[in-house]
């Protein structure tokens, strides 16, 4: 360790963040859209 984050760690970070926060943003957007429709 001590050399900063490896490429594989960065890829896993992007993977995790995309699903968690991207997914959350997507479903919040859908909820907002559906609420406006109703």
């Amino acid at each position, binding site marked *: *360790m*001590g050399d*900063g*984050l*490896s490429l*594989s*760690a*960065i*890829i*896993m*970070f992007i*993977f*995790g*963040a995309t*699903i*968690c*926060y991207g*997914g*959350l943003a997507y*479903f*919040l957007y*859908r*909820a907002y859209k*559906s609420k406006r429709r*109703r």
Partner: protein
Amino acid sequence: MAAIGSAVGLGNVWRFPYICYKSGGGAFLIPYFVALFTAGIPLMILEFSLGHWSKSAPPETFKKIGKKWEWAGWWSSLVPFIITAYYVVVMAWCFAYIIYAIDLRWGADAEHFFLTTFLGVTEGPMTIGGIRIAALLALIIMWVLIFIILYKGVSRIGKVVIITVPLACILFILLAIRGLTLPGAVDGVSYYLTPDFSRLLDVNVWLAAYAQVFFSLSLAQGIMISYASYLKKKSDISNNAFITALADTGISFLAGFAVFSVVGYLALTQGVGIESLGISGPSLTFVTYPTAISLFPVAPMLFGVLFYITLFTFGLDSAFSMIEPITAGVHSKWKIPKEKATALICIAGFLTSLIFVTGSGLHWLEIVDHFISDFGLVLIGLVECLIVGWAFQISKFRIYANNVSDIRIGRWWDILIKFIVPAVLIFILTMAVYNLITTPSEYPWWALLMGGVAPCIIIFIIAFVLMKLKGKTEVKNG
């Protein structure tokens, strides 16, 4: 918001990052997401549908499925009640530590302060060691707080979570940012995220992922059924389930950065390996973290106070959500006013908690938690799937959920609830029994029997007794 508050708890902070690190680092995210989408979210949709359909507390919900299944509702309400009895004690510790953090009272030896000065931990579970006054006072405050939040019903819960959930999230983001700006943080995060894909071939890693999803989302505790019963008629069930599950996972993922950055900093400062530091459970929260906070170059007291306020807030939302199902069940069956039902349950909970604020409390906490989490919750989840999947027409719930949801669920959901989730839960249960038999415990067999097996059996019997007792309307009807 309340469901998110319930799902996000201490487990997100002290369990997920550790399991991730032990189970292949970043590679663990793959089985975790698979478990989330194949078991966690489908089960959450099921529980939301059950509550929304029945508009009742868990016991009445199961009674509506079939009169003989009412016990399952009581059982799933009693288990979180037992969990709360010790969960509130951990919150009481967090509350005490908010005050201790003001002057960093743990000093240079946080482990000695926590185990000896604060808890007075005895050598074994049978040496009770007397009640710890500081922990007792904090415990009383916790139960009074839970009573104040719950006794007015769902309107007050809504007002509380609208403040506590965003507050805890903002504070946690601040703590993660602070952690990531410390020297050594990148090394810590590297331990957390560097993937070891070979671990994906280990069946235990997949089991750990399913178990973590199951516990983290507050499933099989009657909570989601209870909360969903208060949802408006037109509330979107599927979308709410996705939002709750992903928000919970997002906090867990973030927790890894908050924890491992600080652990990395501590490892660098003390010149030790990360492996030698406590990175899960109470040892992370009350030994490793305070040790690191004391070494913070800027405003250690401020970050100490913020850290314990965050944990306390996360814990509070989970704690009162675990009391809500049993309170709602008692209130609904015997028509006892909500205030009285809440007071009764809180007093019973406080009395049950007392054993955990004695010198032997930490031992009993570990024993009860192990059995309730590994066996109690998994069994209830299994029973829930079997009752709804096999004794009832599961497709009816799918159609019901689809009628009020923007996102339509297909027949795959029926298959997951009827076959896949029960199979996984049976496997988790079998592994837990196998581990119990083959792994020697640090506690004697009679302590495991008293603190683990007995509570599980007793609450199972109480569930049947509560079902057999006549409710107020039943008495009137003759």
